[in-house]
């Protein structure tokens, strides 16, 4: 996460898509955007490596794309609304893609959602910033 020294850096398990993230993720997100077109999705499917090499992404970004490592893609400047264009082109639901970033299996994640979702309690501040937690 590149959210250091920001007012939101003490929110656990969260990356805010700010200017710093937008800068490092520009080409990654524009690559994702290209998958909105069927012809580009086909080209990507036929030769994933060849397709990503057409974009001025870093090698780490390319590897994370090929591995569908969404946690890593977020850390490297990907925005979730752009990244779902990648997961959608794989036929994955948003919930399934999102669940891979948590420490839950897709099934457990769905079960948690059916039970009302993740509670905000204990999820507002990172551990070492606990004193600020609301009562």
């Amino acid at each position, binding site marked *: 996460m590149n959210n250091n020294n920001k007012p939101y850096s003490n929110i656990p398990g969260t990356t805010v*898509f700010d200017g710093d993230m937008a800068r490092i993720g520009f080409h990654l997100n524009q690559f994702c955007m290209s*998958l909105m077109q069927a012809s580009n999705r086909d080209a990507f499917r036929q030769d994933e490596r060849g397709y990503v090499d057409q974009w001025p992404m870093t090698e780490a970004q390319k590897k994370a794309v090929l591995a569908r490592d969404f946690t890593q893609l977020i850390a490297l400047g990907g925005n*979730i609304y752009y990244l779902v264009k990648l997961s959608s082109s794989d036929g994955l639901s948003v919930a399934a893609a*999102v*669940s891979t970033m948590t420490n839950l299996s897709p099934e457990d994640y769905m079960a948690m959602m059916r039970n009302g*979702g993740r509670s*905000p309690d204990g999820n*507002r501040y990172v551990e070492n910033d606990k004193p600020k937690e609301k009562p």
Partner: protein
Amino acid sequence: MAKITAGLGTSHIPLLGHIIDKGESHTEKWAPIFDGFQFTKQWIKKQKPDVVILVYNDHATAFDMKIIPTFAIGCGEEYHPADEGYGARPVPTVKGAPKLAWHITESLIKQGFDMTIVNEMDVDHGLTVPLSMVFGEVEEWPCQVIPLAVNTVVYPAPTGERCLALGKAIRAAVEQFPEDLNVQVWGTGGMSHQLLGERAGLINREWDLAFMDDLQSDYDKLAAISQVEYIRESGTEGSEMVMWLIMRGALNHDVTEIHRHYYVPVSNTALGHLIYENADIAADLKTAEDVA
């Protein structure tokens, strides 16, 4: 003269569009979600708005990383449902209200709002899902629509104060338009959800319900909430709720909440929905009914 008569808040969750488009919105499985819009569907048939100013956010569809407007207002003749990667939704083309939209835009810019004018764009689920939830499956949308796209994708989104002020400025602009038009303003997005990171799946029911309570009369309190607080309390995407404040600002101070619906979860998201009528309008209608 044109008049804003009512406001409506609703989530715009893409799954709702998928369910409708697969013809499954009337199934028992999804009844807890869709039943909460039965009242709305009857209500809108009586209201017959001429124009809906539909506040939503584009989800990396019409706008990509090249250009990100804070407030984009659609002055075009029509808008096509976007292909968001799985084909365009099979819903009618959205007819614009260019004359009113240009009037509002001119007024807003003169009032000090730095609008981005859009004459051509496709509209994504943020705009078409609310239309489907309210009007159902129709051959044509029964009103014109002015899309008002708000940036909530790239930090920072406009502040709550700015959104509330924009709503007020929209009201002033609409009331100066010489044609007799029944105008509604819809605020969409939210409620609590977070689509990324280890904390994904966050839902804050208490926060959502308090937001809906406060929106009626304590909206100034809501307008002071920072985006960081939205994110902390209601998830990264929960900050979409700021768009409901534009709707609220466009209404009179006195409104009557005539409907509310809240359900968790839809996909990753808490679904919220409510309807306000301007109090004087509600009173007028009541009087008219009494007389009739």
